[in-house]
């Protein structure tokens, strides 16, 4: 059997490895469009603060890891001929497959602002981006960050510690509005301001004028900031455009997949940021664009590529952990709450500590936390285990920090 995997991020790499395990005689070709070995974008913030070198970002450390079993080729996917079962690359090469995995990931969206394509503007997505940012950052450099979403916040530490003068411009009314509720998103803004970051929320970049020595960033309400570097971190979208015009159905800009991670065309599967897959909490199909989901997708897709129908996807839980200049925030599942559900919150504003639990009946369905790192995974255990909390629901309503005790009571009758 011949397998072609297009995209060499976590979803593609895990899928390739899983196929090798399940079908040792299979031929696996993995196509990547970046010159570097497969690496983790999750590690880039730690590269920016010099905690690791580029090798430290690699998904697999052994240079011989992929060996002969997985043929890793460099190329850009241009189209798929589903009838001929061929992947067509931009340079004209054609790769025949019996099963194809689309694990092409996502890429940053650039806001439609005049000057966004100028030389001083970069995204923070690839190793190449990281090199550019590292080369430009220096003490007292003026930097404007467009977007206080996950990516923007996770690189704040690197930007602050370089000694740059930093301005963050966020459209939403708080930081990380797609991951944090009003209280935690607002508190995170205060945290950043206390660290010397100029944070503008409910604000928009209107234009970027490029001069020889600097760019002038025009921000709503007639504000202007001069910048040597503008970093755009305004969200991502799936790399699925190359499938437009094929029979493969797209949803939310990504490949619509069923519970076998199979697209609308038999033999063509999708995983990770490029797939619109089942969400555990909502039973709906969505693009979560997170690392654990990419890995789980990769594994499920691979099993079904080897033997269709062998593994039914149970749905991924949306979860995020974010370190913003030392303040750790977490979100799980339906952190925004569900209709008719209760919530229990505890806030210590001075110490930047916060927890908000969301219930549906006496089951935990979501959570937001700030400044809490101990036993945090138990939130996943409680949500995904769908435990009936019984009397422990009231105890959690009274003290949401008693999570571990509630879990032990639910699982071990403690």
């Amino acid at each position, binding site marked *: 059997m011949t397998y072609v995997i297009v995209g060499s991020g976590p979803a593609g790499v895990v899928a390739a490895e899983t196929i090798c395990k399940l079908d040792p005689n299979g031929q696996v070709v993995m196509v990547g469009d970046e010159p570097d070995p497969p690496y983790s974008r999750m590690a880039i913030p730690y590269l920016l603060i010099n905690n690791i070198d580029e090798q*430290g970002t*690699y998904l697999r450390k052994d240079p011989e890891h992929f060996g002969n079993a997985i043929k890793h080729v460099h190329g850009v996917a241009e189209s798929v001929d589903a009838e001929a079962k061929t992947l067509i690359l931009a340079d004209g090469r054609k790769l025949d497959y019996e099963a194809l995995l689309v694990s092409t990931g996502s890429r940053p969206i650039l806001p439609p602002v005049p000057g966004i394509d100028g030389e001083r503007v970069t995204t923070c997505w690839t190793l190449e981006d990281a090199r550019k940012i590292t080369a430009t950052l220096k003490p007292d450099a003026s930097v404007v960050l467009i977007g206080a979403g996950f990516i923007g916040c996770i690189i704040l530490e690197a930007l602050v510690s370089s000694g740059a003068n930093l301005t963050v411009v966020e459209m939403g009314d708080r930081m990380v509005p797609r991951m944090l509720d009003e209280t935690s998103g607002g508190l995170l803004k205060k945290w950043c301001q206390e660290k010397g970051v100029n944070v503008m929320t409910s604000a928009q970049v209107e234009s970027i004028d490029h001069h020889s020595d600097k760019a002038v960033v025009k921000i709503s309400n007639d504000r202007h900031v001069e910048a040597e570097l503008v970093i755009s971190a305004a969200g991502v979208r799936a790399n699925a455009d190359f499938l437009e015009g094929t029979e493969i159905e797209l949803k939310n800009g990504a490949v619509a997949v069923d519970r076998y991670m199979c697209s609308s065309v038999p033999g063509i599967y999708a995983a990770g940021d490029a797939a619109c897959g089942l969400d555990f909490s909502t039973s709906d199909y969505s693009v979560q664009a997170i690392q654990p989901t990419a890995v789980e997708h990769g594994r499920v897709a691979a099993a079904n590529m080897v033997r269709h129908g062998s593994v039914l996807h149970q749905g991924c839980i949306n979860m995020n952990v974010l370190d913003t200049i030392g303040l750790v925030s977490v979100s799980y599942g339906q952190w925004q709450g569900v209709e008719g559900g209760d919530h229990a919150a505890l806030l210590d504003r001075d110490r930047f500590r916060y927890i908000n639990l969301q219930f549906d009946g006496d089951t935990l369905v979501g959570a937001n936390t700030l400044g809490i*790192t101990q*036993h945090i995974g138990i939130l996943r255990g409680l949500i995904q285990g769908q435990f009936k909390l019984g009397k422990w629901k009231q105890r959690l309503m009274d003290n949401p920090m008693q999570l571990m005790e509630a*879990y032990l009571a639910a699982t071990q009758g403690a």
Partner: protein
Amino acid sequence: MLRSLNINPDKCTGCLQCEMACSFENEGVFNPAKSRIKIFTFHDEGRFVPYTCTQCDEAWCLHACPVEAIRMNRETGAMEILDSVCVGCKVCTIACPFGTVNYNQTTGKVIKCDLCGGDPQCAQACPTEAITYVDADATGLEKMRAWASKTDNQAHAN
């Protein structure tokens, strides 16, 4: 033969000697806050429950790690953090549904039970045999593992 920690909460008196031993062995200080095993107290029920990583087969932490910083020690069966590789991204801490991987703000790395390389100090320190280190087959981990298989997508693949 693979051995694992067997925890019997009925025998636990809440003396916290396991936490002291763990933090001393792994962090060089007597500080229960830095222990990888924790005793949870149920005041109303008058019960103490020791709790730590079961080195589960699913190894959620290991699979979630983006940079191969968690490996299984083939001799002990423990999932071990490689400090030199861990970047501190904390994805394993939210991926572990048992809440047994913790972020250590001081080092910028994560910590979890590694069975002390095959001689767990918590079991050594426990005066009441609430924590023992026995043949893996004999431990009562099935309850937790049964839960794990319920939501697991990979278990069905094999």
